[in-house]
């Protein structure tokens, strides 16, 4: 295996770690660095056990580590202010504002007040207006 090929494999590893780091952008920086360091050690140990450094073998190690997003989701668990249960992303449609029962009642009450005030004003104004 030439140095050039080894460099290529190292770059593969660094790209993967970069992707994990990017996915963990909202994780505490110290924890993120610690995580990247442990993943780097894992990859080094797994590569140390390889009979031959091939691209396929290194890709298998990275595939088994898994999707950067999944690792990031696990890293976010137990972060301050983060719920322990996974938050299922809701479709945009479901998140649109809908009036609550209280808001609908307030709207109704406001409407009644406007009608009553309007009627009162009309009664007050009626004697003043010229009759036909």
């Amino acid at each position, binding site marked *: 295996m030439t140095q050039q090929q080894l460099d290529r494999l190292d770059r593969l590893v660094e790209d993967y770690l970069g992707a994990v780091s990017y996915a963990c952008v909202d994780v505490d920086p110290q924890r993120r660095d610690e995580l990247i360091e*442990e993943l780097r050690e*894992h990859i080094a*140990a797994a590569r140390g056990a390889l009979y031959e450094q091939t691209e396929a073998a290194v890709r298998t190690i990275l595939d*088994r*580590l898994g999707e950067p997003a999944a690792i990031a989701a696990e890293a976010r668990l137990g972060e301050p202010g983060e719920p322990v*249960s996974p938050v299922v992303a809701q479709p945009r449609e479901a998140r649109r504002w809908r009036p609550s029962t209280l808001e609908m009642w307030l709207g109704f009450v406001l409407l009644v007040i406007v009608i009553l005030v309007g009627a009162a004003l009309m009664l007050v104004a009626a004697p003043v207006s010229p009759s036909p």
Partner: protein
Amino acid sequence: MCGMEAWTGLATALRRGTLEFCVLALLENEPRYGVELVTQLAAQTALTTSEGTLYPLLARLRRAGWVATTWQESPAGPPRRYYELTSLGKEALARFRSEWIAFRTAVDHIVGTELT
């Protein structure tokens, strides 16, 4: 809840809260290094998601004071970080064992999955 997603969600929910104690149990008799630990967990397909997710979990166990790390020379390659159980971790594992038996028994009884 219906379809494949619900079942994936169920597996995740069941794993959460139990996997960390499985890790503690694997460390009960001897310290292990990361690759060794994930290989053993990966042998139990029902327990694993991807190997990489184990490291944030180990970090949480370390912050809880249940697991400590030490460096040891390796026969091949660079020194390895070994994870070992602390006395607090041993207590946590013992507590989980009794909670788990009660939990498992209750669920088995109601769901009808008791071993005969």
